[in-house]
């Protein structure tokens, strides 16, 4: 349906107040047909970046280009970029079909062709029978589908989605995630998806750009940002984490102080440096057996267990450090608060951050 084109951001900055950059020198290449998420806490610059791509905010510095064509001077209405707004931004005085047909009307598409495209777009989002309805007569999820159809119907080069599922409840959100992925697969259009929900970004993206304080801390596949975060921020923002401070020794062994040494296998690390070691809670195993005396450093005192149904989160202390452990429910031993148990981690899954 669409010939997607790649988008380039070069040292893109936006400053509302002198000396304070909402977006601070972003470089990013987005591939044709890619589904990329801008993930970050509120105020991290992800929405501002999106607004600059759409043309509603003017960059203070840097440039934006689509397929090699610089678009900084191009007005929003000439950019041919589709956008789905967080609050849908449907036109309340128009029917569903009129909303979806609006971009075609602006492009003076012939009536018959427009009608056909509207019907195709509405069918794609499962709203074929709702063409004559008023937006207000639809549920939140249905309104979001109309907004999506409206952003796709004119075959834009790029589709921007600004927290489009934020207002929906959990079940509907998951359903829409699957549907959005299907539409992305079918159309092959480049999509930029802004969200602060890390599970959503993980579930949907080809790549994730993690925003913090107006900068991109890391761009990578969901697996890369999850298992090999480049910074402490990325490690703690995406997924649940244990971050331990340590000092590198010889042969990739990091000394975690009271928690003892961990053999990370990173032989490239120079000895004597301060680093952080990320151990994901689900890579730690516990056993109810009382540990042997020699194992004392891996002794965990249980402080709290939280039952999530499919798994338990065990909060405990070892050597004065807080430890978070995720245990599948079927493997969960009976551990009352205050009990002691042994734990062990897969050192090869531990990840060293910042040398």
């Amino acid at each position: 349906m669409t010939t997607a084109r790649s988008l380039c951001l070069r040292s893109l900055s936006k400053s509302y107040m002198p000396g304070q950059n909402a977006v601070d020198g972003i470089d990013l290449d987005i591939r044709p047909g890619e589904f990329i998420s801008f993930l970050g806490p509120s105020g991290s610059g992800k929405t501002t970046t999106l607004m600059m791509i759409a043309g509603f905010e003017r960059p203070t510095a840097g440039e934006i280009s689509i397929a090699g064509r610089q678009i900084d001077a191009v007005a929003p209405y000439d950019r041919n970029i589709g956008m789905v707004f967080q609050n849908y931004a449907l036109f309340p005085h128009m029917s569903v079909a009129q909303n979806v047909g609006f971009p075609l009307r602006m492009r003076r598409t012939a009536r018959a062709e427009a009608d056909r495209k509207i019907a195709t777009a509405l069918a794609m989002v499962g709203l074929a029978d709702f063409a004559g309805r008023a937006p207000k007569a639809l549920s939140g999820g249905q309104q979001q589908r109309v907004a999506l159809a409206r952003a796709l119907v004119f075959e834009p080069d790029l589709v921007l989605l600004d927290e489009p599922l934020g207002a929906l409840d959990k079940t509907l959100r998951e359903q829409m995630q699957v549907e959005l992925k299907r539409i992305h697969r079918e159309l092959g259009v480049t999509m930029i998806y802004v969200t602060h929900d890390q599970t959503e970004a993980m579930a949907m993206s080809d790549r994730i750009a993690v925003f913090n304080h107006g900068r991109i801390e890391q761009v990578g596949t969901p697996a890369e940002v999850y298992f090999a975060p480049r910074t402490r921020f990325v490690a703690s923002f995406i997924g649940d984490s244990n971050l331990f401070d340590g000092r590198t020794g010889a042969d990739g062994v990091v000394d975690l102080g009271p928690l003892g040494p961990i053999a990370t296998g990173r032989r490239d690390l120079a000895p004597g440096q301060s680093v952080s070691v990320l151990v994901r809670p689900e890579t730690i195993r516990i056993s109810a057996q009382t540990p042997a005396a020699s194992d004392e450093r891996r002794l965990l005192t249980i402080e709290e267990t939280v039952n999530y149904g499919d798994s338990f989160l065990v909060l405990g202390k070892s050597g004065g450090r807080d430890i978070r452990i995720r245990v599948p429910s079927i493997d969960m031993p009976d551990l009352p608060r205050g009990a002691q148990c042994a734990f062990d981690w897969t050192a090869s899954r531990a990840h060293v951050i910042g040398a």
Partner: protein
Amino acid sequence: MTMSRSTLVLAVLVVVLLAGPMFIVVPMSFSTAPSLEFPPPGYWLGYYRRVFSDPNWTGPIINSFLIGLGTMVLSMLLGVPASFALARHQFRLRAVFRIIVLMPLIVPHIVMALGYYTYFGSLGLVQSMPGVILAHACLSIPVVVLTVTSALANFDRRVEQAAANLGARPLTTFRLITFPILRPAFLVAALFAFIHSFDETVIAIFISGRDSATLPRQMYNSFQMEADPAISAASSLLLAAVLAVIGARWAAALVKARSKPIGASP
């Protein structure tokens, strides 16, 4: 929500004080008495016939309509752009500008009337319809600005961004999106501007001359000279006009709530 007894008493008192005169004036307008008298000794429509046939009354009624329409157009032409400027743009002295625009709401009409009398006198605008329209527009602009800025405050600009994103140029966005969405507010503002002029008395007495006398001015004159019961008929008509405007707004809201967008395809 239940109303306490004292609140109820207060509410009834307010209604009686505000609406009381209506219950005297309206029956009097149908009275057969040769002077203002309550309760009326009998009922007929003679005074309405007089109001609609005597040039002393029909002239001012037509004048009032023309001046009201002129005021409405002028206040909308000036008030709507001013509202957009105040609601959407940051500029130097914006707060001062807002106060100046809203000033006529606070300044006593008699003070403004005196000002217009002397100022328009030297401009040759006293006793002319354009003069009254100018003066009335000054009073109506704040009403328009208050109505339209409050509508703009609730207007979600992302709808305009969506239109731009989908390929609409600014003027097209205004024509197809902003204006239709704000139409009810514009309608209310225009009607209020009209009615503000239609029942304005003080300035009309000062600067509307014989030829451009408005209905309220004629009522005042007539009352001073002869206590003509036709005044009560004119008052009732004035009241009916105001009620019609409020009723129209209510009806418009009702129609809007029930109607669906017309036509399914673009």
